[in-house]
């Protein structure tokens, strides 16, 4: 499968989707001018990946900021991972948040409530 590597900017996150090396990561800031256009390739990559997913997928979110429009698209990503989990694949979501950022921690807790998929909260110092 093709590898997606998008370098982050001050309004778009860094994205790495690499099946072969087992790296699935979205990090940084997300407030793209057009959320749909930005996330569309990521969602369609996940559709393809779903067909031939690795036995285990650890998907990391390490966001410092995302706007409300992005929050909807992040949920769409999580729901695709939930589908894979339902289809018997081993999935783990790692939600990283700066240790002093309660809002980002709470955002992770909310997603964990909405989707039925193994979810791990990880605080970090930065």
């Amino acid at each position: 499968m093709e590898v997606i590597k998008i370098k982050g900017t001050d309004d778009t996150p860094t994205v790495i989707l690499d099946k072969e090396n087992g790296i699935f990561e979205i990090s940084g800031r997300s407030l793209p001018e057009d959320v749909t256009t930005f996330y569309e390739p990521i969602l369609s990559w996940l559709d393809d990946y779903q067909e031939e997913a690795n036995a285990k997928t650890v998907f990391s979110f390490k966001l410092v900021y995302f706007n409300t429009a992005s929050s909807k698209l992040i949920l769409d990503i999580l729901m695709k991972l939930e589908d894979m989990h339902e289809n018997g694949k081993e999935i783990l979501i790692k939600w990283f948040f700066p240790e002093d950022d309660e809002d980002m921690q709470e955002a992770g807790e909310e997603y964990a409530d909405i989707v039925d998929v193994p979810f791990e909260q990880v605080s970090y110092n930065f």
Partner: protein
Amino acid sequence: MDKSNVKGFLEFVYDFYRSMKAHEITLVYEGEITHQITKAFTSLTESNMAKESESNSVQKKVFHVMVECLQNISKHADSFGSDDFLFAGRGIFMVSKGKNDYHVTTGNVIENDKIEELTEMLDHINSLDKDGLKDLYKNQMKEGRLSEKGGAGLGFIDIARKTNNKLDFHFLPIDEGSSFFLLTSSISRIA
């Protein structure tokens, strides 16, 4: 402008400056709100707050509220007639900093037939407590669809949650078809 007009204008500029100071306005803008403007204003305010050693959590809240307010205008502000000076996606945007709070204020033209729905939505948000807002946000994220313009219907809920304050809003009539919609959000500087 003839000479006396120039003087009058310059006096107006000074009055304007003084009233900005009196209201502790740190940023004011009228015009089209684009993505570039949003980025410029948020990074300007961010660097000002960092210079003034505002706490991380206040900085983040102000940033959140600014982004959502600016995107609201760029996505929802209606046009004001065809030959007028206000167009869709335009509005006034203001940040003020008091001793205890930051205020982020927006104003834009909307069609009168949207007032009822908007009022209902804002009143509903204002009637909810922390948990109620959380449930509403989660629900809207699950059930809501992105609009053509990329709005998720989450902005106001997010502002209420991030600020822990009620949304203050007001409609001023312009003519029989449209009104000026004003919204101000307060972010406490005290932890």
